[in-house]
């Protein structure tokens, strides 16, 4: 693409480290915590000498895209087994917004407004369970063991990251650099030799501009890929190396969430955990974790198998919050911050090659998330710990980081771990959702209760292949002609199509109150808004603009968690506003068209980019 004729000759800088890690989340936290603890012998000598700075212990660098190591992540409930193993004396009161799980409930929510699309079984349940319902919610008499997080903990990953990162930096054994987007791995055949940082001083389309500074190459004997499910290095490796046979990443969800100051007198105690099903749509799960200080992290998961092509998670979350059971306790609260994140829901089935010459993969992007128990943070941490132990072992033995040595250490540890054992059970648990939401729930139950022996059959479909047209989805609800009219009206006024369609099928308007029910844009301004450093190229691009031009669903626009993707008034591919992007990566799978060059992917490319939400809470 770039026109090199008038590109200023700026040399690309190059540096060397022993280990470079991409992305600082729970997986990198587990890796670096384990590694740094073992780098020095008791007598104060390093266990191995750095290959790049002789006489020094190994040089360990971690690059994080976000402007701060605690930015833009998520609230979480977890059993915390791996975390506790790393920190046996863990005192949760030392980490802001952390607490033991004290109470756990699974709630079935009835539709109080009559706009939800409920299969017959749900309608039946609405009636049958009615007499035991409180505020239109039925509390499951017990939490199925596979969903239980008790004993466990709730916390904000942002705060955990800050705590872990602070401890790590304090050791002086690793450097964690925020605001440092990595563009891609440096590859030599199938081997990885380091990473290349994103170029700076470029135009939106990536061509060099004034102040052009090509991204530095950081060479390293080992590259640890921990950049999550939508990270550019992981994606690049998946494209370059392909996925192992039978593996694919076709299941996704976006978590749309916020942190709320609960109203005074709210009876939820710190450590309360709620999981909800049934509303606003049967496919949408809800969660709510109560932190100390009358604060809660709450939100919904909108999965890729949800059939609505104008899926706007934000509005669904607002309807969910207003469900009588929740609203009774939320009303009068104040939103502190909002955010969103993509979850790779293929789990073990989406696992890539875990290692190769010069690289290893950990965390969510390595397929560690357990899709049955809905747990990923502790699993990610555990994979980091396993790699940390393996790297120390190889260092001490003076062995190189090759596919063979990493297979024999890291991969072997993973295969023998509880993470793997439980992921195997979970692997087919969500297959039922391929055909219907009811079969999906039955499937999860079957898998969970039989420990994976019995599963609901189903073969996962690529997200872009399962998105119907708007007319198909609203068939029987809105006549085709009327859809056309609504579409034209919205285009003319420049207003949102999803709002118009949801209004039309009976979803009540959101009574904005300026504190908890706020506009989508305001939610992204509360408690730290989106910031994008100048000089980087756009990280959301469209592979083939002509495909976009012909696209009528435009799920990317309707689903965008930051309203950063919007209609181009001149037609053609949608426009992208970096200043609004929260880096959830949902556009990557919220697209109804395949990339012409790679049918496993959609037409939306999500690449390396700087900035994002400035919030350390959610």
């Amino acid at each position, binding site marked *: 693409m770039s026109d090199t004729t008038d590109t200023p000759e700026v040399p690309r800088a190059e540096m060397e480290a022993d280990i470079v890690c991409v992305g600082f989340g729970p997986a990198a936290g587990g890796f670096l915590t384990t590694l740094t603890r073992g780098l020095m012998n008791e007598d104060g000598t390093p266990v191995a000498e750095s290959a790049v700075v002789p006489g020094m212990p190994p040089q360990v660098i971690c690059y994080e895209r976000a402007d701060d190591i605690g930015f833009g992540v998520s609230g979480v409930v977890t059993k915390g087994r791996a975390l506790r193993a790393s920190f046996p004396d863990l005192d949760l009161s030392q980490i802001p917004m952390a607490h033991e799980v004290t109470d756990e409930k699974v709630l079935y929510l009835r539709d109080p407004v009559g706009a939800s699309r409920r299969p017959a079984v749900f309608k039946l349940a609405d009636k049958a369970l009615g007499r035991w319902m409180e505020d239109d919610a039925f509390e499951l008499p017990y939490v199925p063991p596979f969903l239980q997080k008790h004993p466990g903990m709730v916390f904000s990953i942002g705060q955990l990251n800050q705590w872990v990162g602070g401890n790590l930096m304090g050791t002086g054994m690793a450097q964690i650099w925020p605001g440092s987007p990595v563009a891609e791995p440096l590859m030599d055949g199938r081997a990885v030799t380091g990473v290349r940082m994103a170029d700076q001083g470029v135009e939106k389309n990536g061509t060099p501009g*004034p102040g052009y500074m090509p991204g530095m190459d950081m060479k390293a004997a080992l590259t640890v890929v921990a950049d999550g499910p939508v990270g550019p290095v992981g994606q690049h490796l998946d494209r370059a190396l392909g996925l192992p046979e039978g593996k694919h990443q076709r299941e996704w969800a976006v978590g749309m969430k916020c942190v709320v100051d609960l109203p005074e007198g709210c009876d939820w105690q710190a450590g309360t955990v709620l999981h909800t099903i049934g509303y606003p749509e049967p496919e949408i799960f809800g969660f709510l974790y109560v932190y100390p200080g009358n604060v809660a992290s709450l939100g919904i998961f909108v999965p890729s198998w949800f059939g609505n092509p104008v899926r706007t998670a934000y509005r669904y979350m607002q309807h969910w919050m207003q469900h009588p059971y929740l609203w009774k306790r939320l009303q009068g609260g104040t939103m502190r911050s909002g955010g969103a994140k993509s979850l790779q829901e293929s789990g073990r089935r989406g696992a890539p090659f875990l290692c190769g010459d010069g690289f290893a993969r950990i965390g969510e992007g390595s397929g560690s998330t357990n899709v049955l128990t809905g747990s990923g943070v502790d699993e990610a941490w555990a994979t980091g710990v396993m790699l940390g132990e393996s790297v120390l072992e190889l260092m001490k033995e003076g062995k190189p980081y090759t596919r063979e040595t990493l297979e024999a250490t890291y991969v072997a540890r993973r295969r023998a771990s509880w993470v793997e054992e439980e992921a195997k059970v979970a692997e087919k648990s969500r297959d039922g959702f391929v055909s219907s939401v009811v079969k999906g729930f039955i499937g999860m139950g079957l898998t969970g209760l039989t420990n994976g022996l019995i599963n609901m059959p189903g073969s996962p479909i690529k997200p872009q292949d399962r998105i119907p047209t708007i007319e198909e989805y609203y068939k029987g609800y809105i006549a085709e002609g009327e859809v056309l009219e609504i579409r034209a009206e919205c285009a003319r006024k420049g207003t949102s199509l999803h709002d118009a369609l949801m209004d039309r099928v009976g979803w009540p308007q959101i009574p904005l109150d300026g504190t908890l029910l706020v506009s989508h844009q305001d939610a992204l301004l509360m408690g730290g808004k989106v910031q994008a450093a100048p000089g980087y190229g756009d990280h959301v691009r469209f592979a083939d603009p002509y495909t976009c031009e012909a696209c009528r669903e435009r799920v990317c626009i309707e689903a965008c968690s930051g309203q950063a993707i919007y209609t181009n008034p001149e037609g053609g591919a949608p426009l992208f506003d970096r200043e609004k992007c929260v880096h959830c990566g949902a556009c990557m799978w919220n697209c109804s068209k395949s990339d012409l060059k790679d049918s496993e992917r959609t037409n939306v490319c999500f690449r390396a980019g700087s900035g994002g939400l400035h919030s350390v809470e959610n």
Partner: protein
Amino acid sequence: MSKVLYLAHTECDGTLHKSALETLTAAKALAEGLGGELAVGIIGADVAAAADSVAGCGAKIYGVSGPDFADARYASDLAAAEAVATACGAEIVVAPATSRFSRALPGLAVRLGGRVDTHLSGLAVADGQPVARRWFYRQRMEGTLTRSERPWVLTLDSGIAEPFAGAGSAEVEALTVDVSGVRTKVAGLECPSEDQQTIRPDARVLLVAGAGWTKKQADGAVHVDVAEETILNFLNATKSSLGSSKSLVDISGEGNAVISFLTHMHQVGQTGASPRHAKGLSTCCHGEEPHVVGWRFISERRAINTDAGCGWAQGKCDVLYVGDAFEIMKKVNEMLG
């Protein structure tokens, strides 16, 4: 008995600025409230006219004057202030937070072995003690404070009292201050000409231009020329002051179309200014919180935005007009003639 020294400097025409007269009212009230004595110190090229203009306050007036004190300069202003404060044995020094005194007077606290609190938004007496009020964290929260260290130097922002009125014939005790060792020479001022003048602190109305002025309009094109003309016509017709949002100032860095007469100096908000005007009209700006904190001292607020759900609608302005600022402002200009 507390000795309250009111310090002021003259403007280039030899008069005292409105904010200096407001500060005198506050200083006088403070001295009275404390049962103390007020003294006045004036610094400038020629202080006679200024002294006469406040002679009615009844305080003893000290003056430091001469060509060395014509211009705002840290070392000479501080030396003059120190001379006056020492001469009158000031325990509390009250002065307007002009750029000149904001530069010079913090140093006075060190010279006198005292303390300083700046940019006060209020000054009162409670339990026989001065109580100062000021903003913290860029106008986000306001606190009241007291302290027992003396001398205590206080600078006051404008708008906290009525300007003092009480001219007469003043007798000024002239103090001689040697500033021959000062190494700085003031070369002069760069003032925007009347035509280019867009920041007018004394204007009644503030017009804020947001990033929308430089974005693509309904026809898919950018119309910066029209935007500039519309904004300038309005400013010329109303003699309003011009402010901008941070995003409009920032986008100039990314090779976008820019409004040629806007600079960082115009920026209103958390990383910019918090100007004081009776009325403020926001155009093409989303009303985000970091910007709106800069509106703290704008009494009446109206906004024009195409988005009915923008930040302004959330209780941040009195009236939000949902419409195209290009069209509305064009019409406004026509009506203003």
